[in-house]
Every structure is written in C-alpha cells, then in structure tokens.
C-alpha cells in the first residue's frame, strides 16, 4: 500500500467517522458498541468515554468532552497538529512544523505516567475519580 493511498484512505475514514459521531449521540442512541473491556470487567480504561467526548467536541462542548475523557481533550491539539504535518508532508514533500515534543523522551515518559495515573484514578471513589470517570 503506497503512502499516498494510505493518506487518502485515512482522510476519507476520518471524515466519515467525524460525520457519524457528529450526527449520532453515543450517549443517547444506544446503537454504538460499548467498550468490551468495560463490558467484561466493569472498569474504566483510559479510552472510556472517548466516543461521547468526540460527539461533544464536534458540537463545540469542550468542557463536556473533558468531563467524559480528559486525556483525549488534552492530547487533541498534538494529534491534530501531527496529522496536519503528516498530510502536509505527503502533499508538499516537506515539513509543516517541527514537533519536537513527539521525540522528547521526558514528554513520552510523562505521557506514559499520565495515562497510567489516569486509568487508576478514574476507577477510584475519590472526588478526582468521580470527575475523571466518564
């Protein structure tokens, strides 16, 4: 599969998924699959609430999205800039921005630490846990 084909497929898929999540509310429609991990264990993983967060984000409700899944909202700017850069590299054959953060060892370990802490705390009964739970 060529790089160009991959970029086109990914972009098409992203638009399709964005449209789907903009149109349907995963919290209300009941047509969206629940996370198998949550279904079988009853625990929240770091990804729980990301479908509802995506729906909220596409409607501009950033705070509501942060309540469903904080890490998704926190990392969204990085994800968007990274994707824009990848797309630009494919189309223009040069870098759009130099995202040093992605290659920063301290940042990577911070991310790992954050995800693990997030996964643990959102399953607790503390005030922080209740805020972080989806």
């Amino acid at each position, binding site marked *: 599969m060529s790089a160009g084909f991959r970029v086109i497929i990914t972009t098409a898929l992203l638009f399709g998924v964005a449209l789907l999540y903009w149109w349907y509310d*995963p*919290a209300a429609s*009941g*047509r*969206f*699959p*629940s*996370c*198998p*991990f*949550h*279904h079988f264990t009853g625990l*929240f*993983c*770091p*990804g*729980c*609430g*990301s479908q*509802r967060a995506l729906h909220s984000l596409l409607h501009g409700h950033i705070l509501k999205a942060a309540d469903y*899944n904080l*890490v*998704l909202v926190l*990392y969204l700017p*990085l*994800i968007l800039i*990274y*994707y824009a850069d990848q797309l630009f590299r494919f189309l223009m054959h040069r870098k759009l921005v130099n995202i040093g953060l*992605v*290659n*920063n*060892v301290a940042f*990577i*370990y911070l*991310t*790992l630490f954050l*995800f*693990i802490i997030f*996964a643990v705390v959102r399953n607790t009964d503390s005030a922080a846990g209740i805020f972080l739970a*989806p």
Partner: protein
Amino acid sequence: MIAIYFKKNFMDSQNLIPPSQPKNWLVESILVTILCCLPFGIVGIINAAQVSTKYASGDYAGAERASQEAGKWTKIGFWIGIAVVVLYVLAVFFFGATAFWMSSRY
C-alpha cells in the same frame, strides 16, 4: 555518559551527519490507547520512549529497531480495534445481539 561524549565527539571529528530520528509512533500509540486497545497502546508508548532514548544516546541502529517494534505493536493494536468493531457489527447483524449493545454505553 562518557561513552556518549566520546561518540558525539568522534562523530563530529569525522564530519558524519547523523541520520534523522526514525518515526517513534508516539501519536499513533496515544490514539490506539484512547480509542481502542489499552495494552497495545501502552506497549507502543514504551517503544516510542525507546526510540527517542536510543536516538538521543547516538544508538541509531537501536533506534531504528525500536521504531520498527513500535510500529509493529501500534499496527497490531489498530487492526485488533478494527476487528473488534467488525465483530460487533457482524454479531448484531446475525444474532441480533442488541442486548449486548444496549447494556451500557461505555
């Protein structure tokens, strides 16, 4: 540290241009962690750290190997995520497993 120092100085003296850092798959791993498969995403993030650590210490061949490892785990996570969604759709289509879908929406 001494080894790194000498390696860098040796490289400078030889006027070798170090290769650019291989892709560490960090953002892809974060996406896999948030959107589908926690274990593969975490393995991906650890591998991303390996790529950047090895590159920073001048181990370019090691960074390249870690990059391939990171890519492998991220792709495995991605395809398992796709497979799970497809299985869900098939299960509902053939068995009408709506109870499973309706039970909770996390």
